[in-house]
């Protein structure tokens, strides 16, 4: 494959220049307008001396600006690093430094921008987007000025080296060893084409996107729709599902994607049957297991819509398997089979292939498997062995070759659309002087899949209150990382070798 997602987008610009590419609040941006923005960004970066492979941070919510900056970075030969906009300055600066970012595109209203600028601006040029807040914007280049400059077309021939890194997605913020999943142009292009193929996406498709582009799921929605000349309707969050459904009807979208909590909210807080979904062709779910009972209920509510169950992980670019809608009833609970271009195997602890019905670890090979974690060969070596990605997810095949997830051989917590390393939260809580030890786990939750629970051994009994721990977390962590449940104990349960028995802490009673 010699083409990149930028080539795919350029193709859409050539074929559908006047079609709407992105809708965001009252902005309706055509493919030609989007391309002009991308050219301006690429031109700016060249003028500022960007060299091939330079990392560029993006601290911008889902918006036409995010898309133009992302593709502009790729078109200029850089590596786009989409940053979690709910993260705090400590994580953000840690990631920017870890990848050695030389440029940052940031929303001027981002509350952490001041702190980032104070610590990183000597090594990094910052472009401010949107209305100036209280920042000293004189230190920044401004987005609207970049767009005003007449730009030349980027030379896409320079980025046909498809194995070169294109994007980094940070999946954990631990101070010692942040994990930046590094994806090549080939990873993005291959995964994009596979998804387009199995969803049957064309320029007639459109989607209301509620998932952040800085996560792999949202990232794949962006690339697939722009590659086919489709339309992205951006919603900044999913707090009011009723509003999102109205937008879907108003914009006559053909698709919708979400994580299990998205669908739990739709089923629990909306009357799906009352909406006119005559234009809606499919809905898709990934990001964790959705209970089969919820899937069945969903099919009863909107029987005319195809429902795709999908599976993947950031290390696999986004998607690794899918279950075709026509198999949904017969194979309910399954995550389907490998997507085109990916091979999946189930292997036991001795690396032997498992037979149908026997649980083992899902291993993936193919164009979608990441290059590795940025600047972390040891961490990469633990998950990629002989070219196979060890996903950490446990599953089995049935006799027909359909995969079923049985659990996860990992401490990672999945809550809503987020994947969180317990270590990040433990590090922050351990900074409190009243804390002797802490262990963080995910406990089952009907809506979010899991919620975060912290079990704390205080230095002196009664020295800490739940609220003060949560306040400390709130100050130092993104809102979704604040533990909902805090328990105090005298000892953490441990194995003979001293390892915390996390499974014993996962009891929510």
């Amino acid at each position: 494959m010699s083409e990149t997602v930028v080539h795919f987008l350029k193709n859409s610009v050539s074929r559908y220049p006047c079609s709407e590419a992105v809708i965001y609040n009252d902005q309706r941006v055509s493919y030609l307008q989007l391309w002009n923005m991308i050219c301006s960004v690429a031109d700016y970066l060249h003028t500022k001396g960007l060299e091939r492979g330079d990392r560029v941070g993006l601290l911008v919510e889902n918006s036409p600006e995010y898309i133009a900056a992302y593709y502009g970075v790729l078109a200029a030969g850089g590596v786009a690093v989409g940053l979690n906009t709910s993260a705090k300055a400590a994580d953000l600066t840690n990631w920017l430094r870890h990848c050695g970012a030389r440029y940052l595109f940031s929303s001027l209203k981002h509350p952490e921008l001041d702190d980032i600028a104070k610590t990183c601006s000597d090594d990094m040029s910052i472009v401010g987007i949107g209305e100036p807040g209280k920042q000293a914007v004189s230190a920044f280049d401004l987005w609207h000025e970049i767009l005003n400059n007449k730009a030349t077309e980027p030379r896409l021939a320079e980025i046909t080296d498809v194995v070169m890194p294109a994007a980094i997605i940070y999946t954990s913020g631990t101070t010692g060893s942040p994990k930046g999943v590094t994806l090549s142009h080939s990873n993005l292009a291959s995964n994009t084409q596979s998804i387009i193929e199995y969803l049957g996406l064309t320029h007639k498709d459109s989607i209301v996107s509620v998932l952040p582009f800085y996560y792999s799921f949202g990232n794949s929605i962006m690339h697939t729709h722009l590659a086919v000349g489709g339309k992205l309707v951006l919603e900044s969050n999913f707090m009011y599902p009723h509003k999102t459904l109205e937008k879907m009807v108003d914009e006559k979208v053909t698709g919708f994607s979400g994580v299990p909590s998205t669908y739990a909210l739709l089923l629990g807080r909306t009357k799906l049957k009352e909406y006119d979904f005559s234009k809606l062709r499919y809905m898709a779910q990934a990001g964790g297991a959705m209970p089969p009972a919820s899937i069945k209920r969903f099919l009863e509510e909107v029987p005319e819509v195809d429902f795709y169950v999908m599976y993947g992980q950031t290390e696999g670019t986004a998607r690794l398997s899918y279950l075709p809608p026509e198999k949904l009833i017969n194979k309910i609970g399954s995550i389907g089979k490998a997507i085109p271009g990916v091979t999946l195997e189930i292997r036991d602890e001795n690396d032997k292939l498992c037979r149908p019905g026997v649980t083992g670890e899902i291993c993936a090979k193919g164009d979608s498997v990441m290059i590795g974690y940025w600047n972390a060969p040891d961490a990469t070596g633990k998950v990629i062995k002989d070219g196979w990605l060890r996903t950490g997810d446990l599953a089995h095949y049935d006799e027909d070759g359909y995969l079923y997830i049985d659990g996860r051989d990992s401490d990672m917590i999945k809550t809503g659309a987020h994947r969180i390393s317990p270590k990040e939260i433990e590090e922050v809580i351990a900074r409190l002087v009243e804390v002797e030890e802490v262990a963080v786990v995910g406990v089952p939750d009907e809506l979010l899949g899991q919620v975060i629970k912290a079990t704390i051994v205080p230095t002196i009994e009664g020295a800490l209150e739940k609220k003060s721990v949560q306040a400390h977390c709130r100050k130092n962590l993104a809102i979704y990382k604040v533990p909902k449940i805090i328990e105090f104990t005298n000892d953490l349960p441990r194995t003979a070798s001293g390892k915390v028995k996390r499974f014993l802490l996962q009891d929510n009673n």
Partner: protein
Amino acid sequence: MSVEEKVRGYILDNFLFTDDQSELSSEDSFMEKGIIDSSGILEVIFFLGEEFKVQVEDDEMVPENLDSVNNLVAFVEKKTK
């Protein structure tokens, strides 16, 4: 205690984890300020039921009713009239 005091107290206590009144303005948008996320809004709805016996219908689940202390107070007062 007034409706506003109860609502402010609940938001401060459960989402900002503080008693400091200056941390929250009654006009602050929960969405824009990152005070509450999509699961948090369900907790707020549960609180309205428990504290004020106010049922939030699906079509009432909109920012105009729920996205700030002022909006919540106006909504509760309208529903309990």
